C-alpha cells in the first residue's frame, strides 16, 4: 500500500495523531540560483512526469512562460534583469529563480485547510495535496506565504508541486531535480543539502558575492526547498522572493482555536458557513495585520 511508503506527519483538518515510531529521512531540494541557466527543463520535466499540460499561452514581452503558476504549471522560472551599483559595479545580472512550493516545515496551507486529508505533510518533509479530498475553498492560498497553490478552473481543486512524492516514495529524485542539466537543482537529505549549499556559498564568496547565502526561512520553520542566492541579503531581487515569510497570524488563530471547534460540527452546510465566516473575515483583516507585523519588524 502506497501509504505505507511515506509516513504522515500532519494531515489537514484531522485530529487523529500521526504515526511516529519509524524514523524517516528528512529530504530537501536545493536550488542553486547561481548555476541555474533558466532553461526550464524543470518545468518540462514537471509537466511530463505529472501528466499535466498547461495551455499554450502567448508572449507578453518577457521570457517567463507560462506567465505564472497555474493548476497545470507547478513550477515556473522567474527572470529578473538587475543592475546593482553597490555589488557588481552596475554590471548586468540576470537573476533567474525557479518558483514553486517550498514545502515548509510549518506549512501554512495545511494549517489553513478545512478539508480533512486534502493536505498532508509526510515525515520526510514533503507537503502534498490530495485533490480527491480538496473542496476548492482556496484557504491554502491564503495560508501560503509564498503564493503557490492554484485552483483549477476545470475541477475547482487546488494544485501545486508534490515534490514528486510518488518518485521520492520509491527512492527516486523529483523529476525536476533529475532533469536539471547544470545541477542547479540538487536533491537529498536536508542535512546533505545544507552542507552542499555551504560549499557553493564559499565558491560564490570567492567570486566576489560577499552576501551569498542560503535561503531556508525560519518564519515557516525552515523549508524543504531551499535556495542558494548570490545576494542572500536581498531575496526580493529574485522576483519578489519574500524576505521574512511567515504564516498569517489569522491562519494561526484558525489553527489554534477555531478549527477544533469546527471539527465538532457535523452539519455540512453549517460547517461550510463557519469556515466561510472564520476564513473570509480574517482574510480581509489579514493584510492589515501583516502590515502591522511588518511595521513591528522594521522598528
Amino acid at each position, binding site marked *: 500500500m502506497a501509504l505505507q511508503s511515506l509516513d504522515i506527519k500532519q494531515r489537514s483538518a484531522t485530529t487523529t495523531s500521526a504515526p511516529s515510531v519509524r524514523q524517516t529521512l528528512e529530504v530537501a531540494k536545493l536550488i542553486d540560483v547561481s548555476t541555474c541557466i*533558466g532553461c526550464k527543463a524543470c518545468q518540462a520535466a514537471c*509537466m511530463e512526469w505529472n501528466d499535466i499540460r498547461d495551455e499554450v499561452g502567448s508572449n507578453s*514581452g518577457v521570457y517567463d*512562460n507560462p506567465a505564472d503558476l497555474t493548476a497545470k504549471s507547478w513550477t515556473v522560472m522567474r527572470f529578473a534583469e538587475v543592475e546593482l551599483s553597490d555589488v557588481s559595479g552596475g554590471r548586468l545580472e*540576470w537573476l*533567474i529563480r525557479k518558483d514553486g512550493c517550498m514545502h515548509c516545515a510549518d506549512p501554512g496551507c495545511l494549517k489553513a485547510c478545512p478539508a480533512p486529508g486534502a493536505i498532508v505533510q509526510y515525515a520526510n518533509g514533503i507537503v502534498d495535496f490530495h485533490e480527491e479530498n480538496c473542496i476548492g475553498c482556496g484557504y491554502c492560498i491564503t495560508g501560503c506565504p509564498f503564493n503557490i497553490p492554484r485552483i483549477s478552473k476545470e475541477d475547482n481543486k487546488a494544485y501545486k508541486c508534490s515534490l514528486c512524492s510518488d518518485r521520492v516514495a520509491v527512492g527516486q529524485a523529483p523529476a525536476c531535480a533529475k532533469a536539471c542539466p547544470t*545541477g542547479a537543482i540538487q536533491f537529498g537529505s536536508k542535512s546533505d543539502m545544507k552542507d552542499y549549499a555551504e560549499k557553493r556559498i564559499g565558491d560564490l564568496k570567492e567570486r566576489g558575492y560577499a552576501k551569498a547565502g542560503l535561503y531556508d526561512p525560519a518564519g515557516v520553520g525552515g523549508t524543504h526547498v531551499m535556495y542558494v542566492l548570490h545576494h542572500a541579503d536581498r531575496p526580493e531581487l529574485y522576483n519578489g522572493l519574500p524576505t521574512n515569510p511567515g504564516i498569517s497570524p489569522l491562519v494561526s488563530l484558525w489553527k489554534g482555536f477555531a478549527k477544533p471547534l469546527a471539527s465538532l460540527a457535523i452539519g455540512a452546510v453549517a460547517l461550510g458557513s463557519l469556515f466561510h465566516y472564520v476564513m473570509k473575515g480574517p482574510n480581509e483583516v489579514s493584510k492589515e495585520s501583516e502590515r502591522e507585523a511588518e511595521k513591528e519588524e522594521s522598528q
Partner: protein
Amino acid sequence: MTNHWVDIKNTDLAIIMGGNAAEAHPCGFKWVIEAKKDRKAKLIVVDPRFTRSASVADFYAPIRAGADIAFLGGVIHYLLSNDKIHHDYVKAYTNAPFLISEGFGFEDGIFTGYNAEKRSYGKDTWQYQKDKDGFAMVDETLQSPNCVFQLMKKHYSRYTPELVSRVTGTPKEDFLKICGMIAETAAPNKTMTILYALGWTEHTVGSQNIRTMAIIQCLLGNMGMAGGGINALRGHANVQGITDMCLYSEVLPGYQSAPTDADKTRADYLAARTPKALRPGQMNFPQNFPKWNTSLMKAFYGNAATKDNDFCYDWLPKKDGAYDTLALFERMHQGKMSGFVCQGFNPLASVANKKKVGDALAKLKYLVIIDPLATDTSEFWKNYGEYNEVDPAKIQTEVFRLPANLFAEEDGSFTNSGRVVQWHWKAADGPGESKGDIEIMAALYLKLKEMYAKDGGKFPDAILNLAWPYRIPAKPSPSELLMEISGKALGDVLDPKDPTKVLVKAGEQIPGFAMLRDDGSTSCGNWIYGGCWSQAGNLTARRDASDPTGLGQTLAWGFAWPANRRILYNRASADLAGKPWDPKRPVLRWTGTAWGGNDIPDMRPDAAPDQNVMPFIMNPEGVARLFAPAMADGPFPEHYEPFETPLDNNPFHPKNPKATSNPAARVFKGDMETFGKAKDFPYVCTTYRLVEHFHFWTKHAHINAVLQPEHFVEIGEALAKEKGIASGDKVKVRSNRGFIKAVAVVTKRIRTLDVDGKKVHTIGIPLHFGFKGLTKPGYITNTLTPFVGDANSQTPEYKAFLVNIEKA
C-alpha cells in the same frame, strides 16, 4: 570537437563565443559548471546579447555581430606583443618556423593572388619554401621575416586594442580584461577551452572565425590537452555522424574528396589526394587515401569493383561545380531542377531568404518530403494568410509526403559532437504506417532498380550493380549497415612486414582502419569508423562508463572515431620528450617503449620522441597550421564586414571598398541587389535558437510550445525608447528581402554599442516559429536573412545582417 563533452570539466577557462552553450547544449554545458565548481575554472562569454550562458559567466562582454575576427585578431596581437605564448609548443608543434614564399603579401585588405572578377584567390604565393627534396624549409630561430611567426606578428600588429574596440563595440577595458584571462592559459599546465557553434560558422567569414581561435589555441599550447581544444558544439544529435557519412556532394564517406571533372582517371584522382610528407619522418596520414577509397568502392560495388575496372571509378558521378544548399536552391530558382527530396529537413524555414526558397520549390515538377512531422516546407504551396501568402492553384509542383519514424522507433547509432558513436534501441513502433528512413530509401532504390532492370534507361550499371547484401533486401538492418560501415576483410589481410602472418582472416570484421588495403581485399563504408563493429561485436553499444583516471575519458563507453580516440592531437599534450605538459592531467606519455596513457595515442605507438614525429598527423608537415593555404579567403584570417554592414567601410581598410566584405565570398547574380544598405536598414540583426526549442521541431511538441509559445523579437532599451516600443507590443521587422511581425521583448540584455563613432543597435530574433505547429502561428524568421555564404563552407550569413523596425 577535438575534445569531448565531459572533457570540458578539465578546463581552467571556458570561453563561449560564437555560441550559446547553456541554451543550445544545456546538458553539455553542465561540464562548464562542473569545471567552475570543482576546478575553480572561470567562464567568459562574448556575445552581442547577454545570453543564458552569460547569466552564469564570471565575465561577459558585448560584441557587434560579425566582428569576431577583429576581436580575436586583437587577442593574437595581445598574446604576441605581451609575449604570452607557449614557446616550446609553438616552435615544435606549429608551422611558426616555416618559410613562406617570398612573393606572399597582403595589401589594403587583399592577399596576393586575388582575381576580382572571379572573386577568388590563386594561391601560388601562399606556399612553403621547399628544399631540393621537396621538404618545407624552416627557420628554427623564428627570426626570418618570411617565417610564419614573423608574418603573423606583422599581420596582427594592426589589431590594436583601440581599433579592436572601435570595430567590435566591445569596451576597451573589457577586451583587455579578457585578453589577460586568456593569456594566463599560456602556462604549459593551464588550458582554455573554446565552445563555439553557429554563431561563428554562420558568417561570410565563418571558417576564418574558427581559424582565428585555432591560432590562439595553438599559440597557447592548448590543442591536444585535457580541458583544451577547439570545440564545435554541433547541431543535431547525429549531425556529426551525417557529416562523417558525408551527405554532401563534394565528399565521399570519411571526408574523401569526391571526383570532379578534372579527375579524368582514377590515377589522376588518387594522385591529387595522396600527399607527400612536407617534413622528414612525418606520418602524413593522408598518404593512405588509396586504401580508404578502394575499400569504399568495394563496399559500394562489391564484386563488381575490380582492379581491372579501376574499382568502378567511372561509376562515381563527377562534380562540375558547387551543389551546396545555397547553390542548390539557386539552381532550383533558375528552373534547372525537376525533382527534390527533403529527408528530415525543412528548408523553407531553415534556408536563407524564404521567398526565394518558396519560389524555387514552386518551379519543381516533384517534391518528396520524408519526415516524421508535417513541416512548413511540405505545405509551402498552401496559403496560411500573412504567414505564407501563396496561391496553390498557381503552384504546379507535385508534393509527396512520406511518414518517417523518430529516434525511439528504430535501432541505430548516433555520433555526438565529441565524435562518440552510441547505439540506441527501438522502444515502440511509429504511428500509423510510418517507416524508418532505411526502409524508405530502400523502397525507392529497389523500385528504381526494378524499373531499370525491366525497361533499361540511362547508365543503369551503377544502379543494377550496387552491392545490396542485406538479408531482407527491402529492409536492411541497422546492424548490417554499421558492419558494412566499419569494414571487413574480403581476403586474408597480411602483415606487410611478414607476409606469412595473417592479420585479419577473410570474412572477419576489421579491428581498425590500419588494416585497410588498396588492392580490393578489404571493404569499408567509412574508414574513420573502421573498427567500430569489430570481431568483438558492436563497440558503439558498449555501456561501461568506468573512468579510472577521473579525466572523463570513458574509453569503454561507445566508440569514438577515429580508433576510439577521445582527444584529437593528444600527442601534443606532452612535450618533445614525451612528458605531459601538465602532470596533473596527463593524456599521453612516452613510456620508454611506446606511447601510453589515458587515451588511444594520436601517434604511431612506437614513434619514440627522438624520431621527431610531430602530433598533427593529418597534415603532411606534421604540425598545426598558423598559416593555412587551404583556406579560400586567405592564409591568415582578416576582419571583413558582413555583407550587410552598418558601417560605410571596413575600418581596417577604409580606402578599399573591395575589402569591405569578404572578397572571396561567393555572391550569386542578382543577390548583390538584395543586400540592404545602412541608410534604409540601420540596425544589426542576428538570429538564434532558444533553449526551449529545437529548430523547427519542438513547435510541434506541446510541452515546448507551452514554454515558449510565440514568436518574438528582442531589442535593447535605448532603441525601444527611440522607437516608442514597449515590451509586449507587436513590431514589424523589415530587411531588404521581406518582413516579419512578432512580439517585442525589450531588454537590458542587448546593449547599444559604440562602433566606429556610431551608435549601433542590435535586434535579436529567434528562429523557431512558423505557420505549422502547436505554437502560435508566426512568420518564418528566415524571410529576412541574406542569401550569401561563407567563402569556404557556403554556410549562409544568418548571424549578421541589416533590418529596420517599427511598431506594427
